[in-house]
């Protein structure tokens, strides 16, 4: 049973890895596609151009992967920042409790009662459109989910005897946080990280689609779909295929995140077998 799950996870992980490698080397693999060719404008999908070409004669497949690279990179960085902030805030809030915790809960309520999209737009207005402000907007919300998870996790294990036990054998607060709490919490955070990258890739695409995020001439999936929409009657491949690529990556990230979560759950419950 356990082995079967491990095997599944390995396969999924391998697929994701291949996809990621393709993206990492997309510059080398597809670099020549992101060039304007006036002679092959708006061609239908064919063997040479599997996803067709756009009105400027650029290969849609190449651009989709190059765009994916940007999205993934941005998503990864954004989530890394979110995770760092979120885990620290969440752990501290739950471990020390008191005013710190109350403050956190208040902040959380405030942020959660903004319709998230609207606040995002406000931030984008403040900082102007572009990659940087989009990242800020993503982080503004992203850290909260990590913080909430970390907080609930820490609250759950804070009263476990092993924390008291560690205190009783003379470990300091800092030692306890880094030796016992963070390692225990991080195991639930990592699957979430994977899931959230998928999530933020979608978010980036969405914002770029509305024209707030990545700006042309960068290749980005959301942008490509937006541009493709103008040709909705004539060249449907312009928006269908980039979205498809995005979906594939996002599915894989979700699936791997899920499997990771399942696996860690099993490990948790593998204590003394109950009869």
């Amino acid at each position: 049973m356990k082995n079967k799950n491990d095997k599944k996870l390995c396969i999924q992980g391998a697929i994701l890895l291949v996809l990621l490698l393709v993206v990492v080397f997309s510059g080398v693999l597809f670099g020549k596609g992101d060039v304007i060719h006036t002679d092959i404008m708006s061609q239908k999908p064919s063997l040479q151009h599997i996803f067709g070409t756009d009105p400027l004669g650029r290969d849609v497949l190449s651009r989709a992967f190059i765009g994916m690279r940007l999205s993934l990179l941005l998503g990864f960085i954004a989530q890394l920042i979110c995770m760092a902030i979120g885990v620290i805030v969440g752990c501290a809030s739950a471990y020390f409790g008191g005013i710190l915790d109350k403050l956190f809960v208040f902040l959380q309520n405030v942020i959660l009662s903004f319709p998230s999209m609207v606040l995002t737009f406000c931030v984008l207005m403040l900082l102007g459109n572009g990659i940087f402000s989009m990242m800020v907007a993503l982080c503004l919300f992203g850290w909260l989910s990590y913080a909430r998870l970390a907080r609930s996790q820490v609250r759950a294990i804070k009263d476990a005897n092993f924390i008291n036990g560690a205190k009783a054998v003379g470990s300091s607060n800092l030692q306890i946080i880094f030796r016992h709490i963070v390692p225990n919490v991080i195991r639930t955070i990592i699957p979430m990280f994977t899931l959230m990258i998928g999530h933020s890739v979608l978010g980036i695409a969405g914002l770029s689609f509305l024209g707030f995020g990545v700006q042309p001439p960068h290749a980005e999936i959301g942008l490509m779909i937006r541009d493709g929409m103008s040709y909705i009657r004539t060249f449907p491949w312009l928006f269908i295929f980039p979205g498809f690529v995005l979906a594939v990556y996002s599915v894989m990230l979700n699936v791997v995140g899920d499997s990771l979560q399942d696996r860690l759950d099993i490990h948790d419950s593998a204590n003394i077998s109950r009869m």
Partner: protein
Amino acid sequence: MIKVENLTKVYTSGFFKRTYHKAVDAVSFEVKAGRTLCIIGESGCGKSTVCLMLTRLLDPTSGRIILDGRDVSSIRGRELKEYHRNVQIIFQNPENALDPRIRIKDSILEAIRNYGIVPRGSPEEKALLKDLMGMVGLQHEHLERYPWELSGGQIQRAIIARVIALKPKVLVADEPTSMLDVSVQAQILTLLKRLQKEHGFAMLFISHDLDVVRAVGDEVLVMNRGREVERGGTESVFRSPQAEYTRNLLRAFYYEKEVVREESYVAADQ
């Protein structure tokens, strides 16, 4: 050796309407080196709270804790760390008493290294681990295992090893065997008694199993709703209980009479 005077813990709850709950109310006792004091009482009577306060994992609301003639009820920092070394605790539930992500070895080493008992990574450290394992009756291979790979009894042994490594003056055992089977319970209790004879620590033993108390305790303190009900030598308390509550408790435990007494509605938290 360790003395407690008027130890009190009051929990306040409620935001608008403050309610006070006296978990422990002016409890006093003294345990001498090599002796065992047992605290008995129903769940929720405050015995676990006494344990946590005595080990300074919980701050007392008032009262004094005196170790070797020194008031330690409000020490902090370095002094507190030193105090922790002297006063050790074994918890009731072996299931989460050790960090599930850490090997037994590292859990034990955590204690040893915190106090720099032997140089880190030295051959002495290895020898000490080996000694400890022998002392508590575990195999050397258990050191490399994770807590969830061990049975409840084995975890308690590992915890005892970690506690003994610090050579404490006082050992607080909060129902160390209530989750274990009879045969394992006998193993653990015998081990504790043997170690007490060898190391001469004072022991505060919490239990609701009166037979266990009778077998290990020199003195008994009966608690009910945070208050001391009766205190005395084990045999005298068991033979001729003075307080009504103690008599009830004894009767109920030995199934002598039908006990009909309504508890409070809400489960009192431990």
